[in-house]
């Protein structure tokens, strides 16, 4: 929280113009931070007296416990696409198991699709005590209407206290619909989860990862969060695990107001940057479109994906789905190699949470070096072929 120390504030009003949200007002001659405050911290450095401070105190909240105690159990929405379980679902089962054990409750998974019996069983191997399966030919394509309807009804009936989903295209589309329908809170893009009693602490980056925020949903259930891929480790499956498969009755009258005609796959095989362990990204320094081939060669060595800065996308060298940063995608792979990317803030916010960042750039003052674990100043066209060769050598 941001607070004003009244005894220090001189009422000079300098902070008022520093606030991009107009969240500071003068009350009885002293600055007062109103509830519009977005925790951006712009005002902190504006105060000549240092009267504006950041505190870690918690706001008060009351838990209306009688109603909430009916809600028990941790749920994971298990996403499958065209019959393939997505890694994020398995990662969430690992974390969900930990949460459920901490709360001494059950872990359930919900899977929606067509012909997914085998996938449902796999979810038990990965830690689910119960799997709710909505298996119907009408569910072969993802629709916000059908997925939203089925998940909302199930939640209303079974009353789980926590629901986790991947922060994927599908999760970020229909999970907000479910939250709005159930009139409960939803925290997007979490990178960590914890507890205080049975209150889920949902940790997410704010302001492009420059600040971490702990978000809670104290008075409504379920507590809902989407979680970024790759945040949690996939658990080791145990074939011997036992669990219960529960068939969900799929009504045949869910009105579908959208219809999927077809799915068109991106022809570049290296496009799924949100789930890649290794991303090789190129920027303006590449100079022209065909130089992305060099990056692809390196990506192949790692089995990685190709990313790009906005400059490279805007120049038309590579398509938008590859763009990383504020108006593109946010990624956090194990290894991120930035080639010829200067590192504008808008790019950094999309990749700075990567485990290891390697920056290769001609300009020693490029901001990308500030977030890089390893930096090499030099010509990418000299360095990349060398790097590819050396890695191949090391691997034999």
């Amino acid at each position, binding site marked *: 929280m941001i607070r004003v120390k009244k005894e220090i504030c001189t009422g000079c009003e300098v902070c008022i113009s520093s606030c991009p949200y107009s969240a500071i007002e003068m009350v009885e001659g002293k600055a007062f931070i109103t509830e519009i405050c977005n925790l951006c911290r712009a005002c902190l450095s*504006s105060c000549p007296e240092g009267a504006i401070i950041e505190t870690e105190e918690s706001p008060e909240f009351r838990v209306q416990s009688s109603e909430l105690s009916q809600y028990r159990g941790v749920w994971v929405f298990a996403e499958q696409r065209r019959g393939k379980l997505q890694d994020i679902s398995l990662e969430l089962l690992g974390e969900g198991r930990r949460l459920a054990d901490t709360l001494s409750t059950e872990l359930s998974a919900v899977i929606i699709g067509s012909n997914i019996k085998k996938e449902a069983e796999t979810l038990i191997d990965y830690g689910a005590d119960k799997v709710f399966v909505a298996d119907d030919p009408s569910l072969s394509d993802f629709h916000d209407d059908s997925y939203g309807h089925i998940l909302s009804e199930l939640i209303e009936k079974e009353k789980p206290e926590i629901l986790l989903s991947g922060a994927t295209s599908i999760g970020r589309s229909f999970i907000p619909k479910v939250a709005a329908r159930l009139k409960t*809170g939803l925290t997007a893009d979490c990178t960590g989860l914890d507890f205080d009693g049975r209150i889920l602490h949902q940790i997410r980056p704010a*302001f492009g990862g420059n600040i971490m925020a*702990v978000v809670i949903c104290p008075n409504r259930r379920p507590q809902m969060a989407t979680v970024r891929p790759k945040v949690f480790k996939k658990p080791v499956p145990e074939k011997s695990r036992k669990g219960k498969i529960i068939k969900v009755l799929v009504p045949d009258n869910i009105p579908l107001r959208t219809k999927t005609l077809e799915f068109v796959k*991106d022809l570049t095989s290296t496009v799924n940057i949100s789930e890649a362990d290794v991303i090789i990204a190129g920027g303006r320094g590449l100079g022209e479109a065909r130089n992305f081939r060099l990056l692809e060669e390196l990506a192949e060595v790692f089995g990685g994906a190709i990313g790009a800065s906005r400059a490279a996308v805007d120049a038309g060298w590579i398509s938008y789905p590859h763009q990383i940063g504020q108006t593109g995608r946010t990624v956090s792979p194990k290894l991120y190699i930035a080639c010829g990317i200067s590192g504008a803030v808008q790019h950094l916010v999309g990749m700075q949470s990567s485990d290891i960042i390697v920056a290769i750039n001609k300009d020693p003052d490029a901001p990308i070096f500030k977030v890089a674990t390893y930096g090499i100043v030099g010509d990418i066209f000299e360095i990349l072929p060398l790097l590819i060769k050396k890695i191949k050598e*090391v691997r034999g």
Partner: protein
Amino acid sequence: MNIIVCIKQVPDTSEVKINPETNTLIREGMPSIINPFDMHAIEEGIRIKEKVGGKVTALSMGPPQAMEALREAFSMGVDEVFLISDRAFAGSDTLATSYTLSKAIEKLGGYDIILCGKQAIDGDTAQVGPELAEHLGIPFVTSVKKIDEIKEGYLRVHRMMEDGYDVIETRPPVLLTVVKEINEPRPPSLKRKMQAKNLQIPVWKKEDLNIDEERIGLKGSPTQVLRIFPPATKGERKILQGNLEEQVDRLVKELKGLGIV
């Protein structure tokens, strides 16, 4: 077609500098802009109007200075703008925001398409669009990268997915959230810019909307920020020494040591 575009004013981070000591953004004196994704929503609204006729209305919820964002939208070619602004809305999370917006849109009435940016760059939640559609009881398509066909009572759009795109048919009324690939926003026209200066922007307060007071502002927001803290600092940064070949050698060794190569 009647098109409503929802826009948000956000701090402009394009000229942001990072404080090297604290590694935080220096946001002082930062101007406000229309959320970049919303610029594409405005542009798409105007394009639909140019193609099939109709009216584009822009709506923003925020403090009084969000009028500037609405003036800019007007300068680009939006026909009518409204501001939803009341202290009672302060502290709204996505559920309360989308509920409030839905009440303003119900008041406007008679819409065919609602356009929103995929997400705002200051919150990054991407929740207000789908939640708004749910409150209004209309369908939605998120991350739209192309409107392939649009005519009376019919829309075909491309929805961006991780590894390609879905071709989706739907019909108005519908809400679409758009990504930047959909278009290139036009610059404001000089003439409209002049008109925008003197534009009287209607401001709707809580009394103007048929609203349940329990569902707005802090009271109507199920989520709250408990606390904030600086992100964990990364491991040490290693500067590689030597000539290029030695540096690359060193890098490969380090990556090997970390089990990545």
